[in-house]
């Protein structure tokens, strides 16, 4: 096993676990497509990183962070749904990104590439993933309460709007680190599908959050291993691994008659 593969696997576990954990909220908030679309917003940032020779992660995160703040703010003042605002933002970002990403780097940006993962990328990804999970754990119950009833949450002293903004920023962080291995086009998958699979077979909230994280980590790491052995792009293989888990949970739910 090469050093690059070990780094990629470490990133995959960190990104998969954290994306699964954060995604468990995204799916319950019925914002699955938001998670997917938000990831595309990173493309112009990646392009700037490639063009001006700085770490594309910072470009991607800058664009994701900026978009999350704009979407949150527009949502507050216009009362339009997240879906509508993200839908408007992401197509624009994708169009700009495709126009300015140099063609040789476009495939890597869109579908991920594990052959260029370095030690610093790995350390950065693991630290960010752990930080994002810890902060999400602090606001997890507040977000759930806000979903049950915003009035109930506010009457218990929770600032729902600020909590949602923090959550969007944490999703942006995790998406930004996931782009390296899965690519901007497919990283949203890691936020959505592990949670959907976990929901199929979870009878309570803590199990749901845990399974979603574990499924995320398994999808990402098995996709990376397959990519290394088959010499194919990592992003699509991560997606296929995750879909296999999802189908397994559908089968388990049907066979075991799990009522969720």
């Amino acid at each position, binding site marked *: 096993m090469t050093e690059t593969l070990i780094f990629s696997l470490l990133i995959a576990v960190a990104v998969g676990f954290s994306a699964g954990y954060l995604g468990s909220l995204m799916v*319950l908030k*019925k914002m699955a497509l938001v998670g997917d679309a938000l990831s595309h917003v990173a493309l112009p940032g990646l392009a700037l990183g490639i063009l001006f020779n700085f770490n594309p992660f910072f470009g991607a995160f800058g664009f994701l962070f900026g978009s999350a703040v704009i979407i949150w703010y527009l949502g507050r003042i216009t009362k339009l749904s997240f879906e509508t605002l993200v839908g408007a933002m992401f197509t624009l970002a994708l169009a700009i990104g495709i126009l300015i990403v140099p063609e040789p780097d476009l495939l890597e940006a869109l579908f991920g590439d594990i052959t260029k993962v370095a030690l610093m990328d790995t350390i950065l990804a693991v630290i960010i993933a752990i930080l994002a999970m810890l902060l999400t754990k602090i606001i997890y*119950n507040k977000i*759930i*309460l806000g*979903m*049950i*009833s915003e*009035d*109930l949450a*506010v*009457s*218990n002293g929770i600032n729902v709007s600020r909590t949602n903004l923090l959550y969007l920023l944490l999703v942006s962080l995790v998406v930004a680190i996931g782009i390296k291995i899965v690519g901007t086009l497919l990283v949203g998958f890691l936020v959505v599908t592990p949670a959907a699979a976990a*929901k199929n077979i*979870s*009878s*309570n*909230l*803590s*199990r*749901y959050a845990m399974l979603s994280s574990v499924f995320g980590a398994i999808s990402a790491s098995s996709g990376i291993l397959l990519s290394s052995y088959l010499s194919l792009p990592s992003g699509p293989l991560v997606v296929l691994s995750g879909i296999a888990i999802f189908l397994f949970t559908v089968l388990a739910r049907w066979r075991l008659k799990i*009522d*969720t």
Partner: protein
Amino acid sequence: MGSQDDYILNVSNLSVELQSQTILEDISFKLKRGMTLAIVGPNGAGKTVLFKALLNLMPHTGKVDWSNRVKIGYVPQHFSVSDIPITVKEFLLFKSASGMENALSSVGLDSEEVLNKRLNILSGGQLRRALIAWAIIDSPEVLLFDEPTTGVDLDSEESIYRMLKELEKKNNITILLISHSTHIIEQYSDYMLALNRCVTFFGESKEIADPSIQKIIYGEPVCVHVKE
């Protein structure tokens, strides 16, 4: 009549405006500790808005004075649990790690039976009771219920109100509730505040049986000023 200390809530000249529309205008009333006050009125009268203003969840003018450091429990009318795999235990843990069994038994739920059940598979009546258990788990002195029996069958509705009355007596809790049911208001509340943007009636709940009072409550609004 009573001393100022007997009053747990004193509302004076409360007004709420939303998008340049007056929703509540010049609402004033007082409520004694341990009483149940029913808020009544036609749809769109501002009942829920009044609750939100009392909880300081909504910008308003005028004064809402709760007695010092009063602890308030609130059960909103609308909530959504259908898609969230959260159990009763996990839900109650959000608020308090202790007192779960007591809170559940106070609302007539068997903790062994429901603690590990998900909220989204409880019956309408059980779900409302679980929400009330959430509201009372940290022993509040005041409970606000926005139509506590929405989505509940008639038998369960009656038993929920009986349970609320017992809670009021046992723990000397002050209850404010929004209800549309004349029979419930008459039987389970002490006072009634009728709203239709302004206060149209304030008095003892038994008066709701009087057809002329019902006409005042649900007819064209004629504002009154509550003295006591």
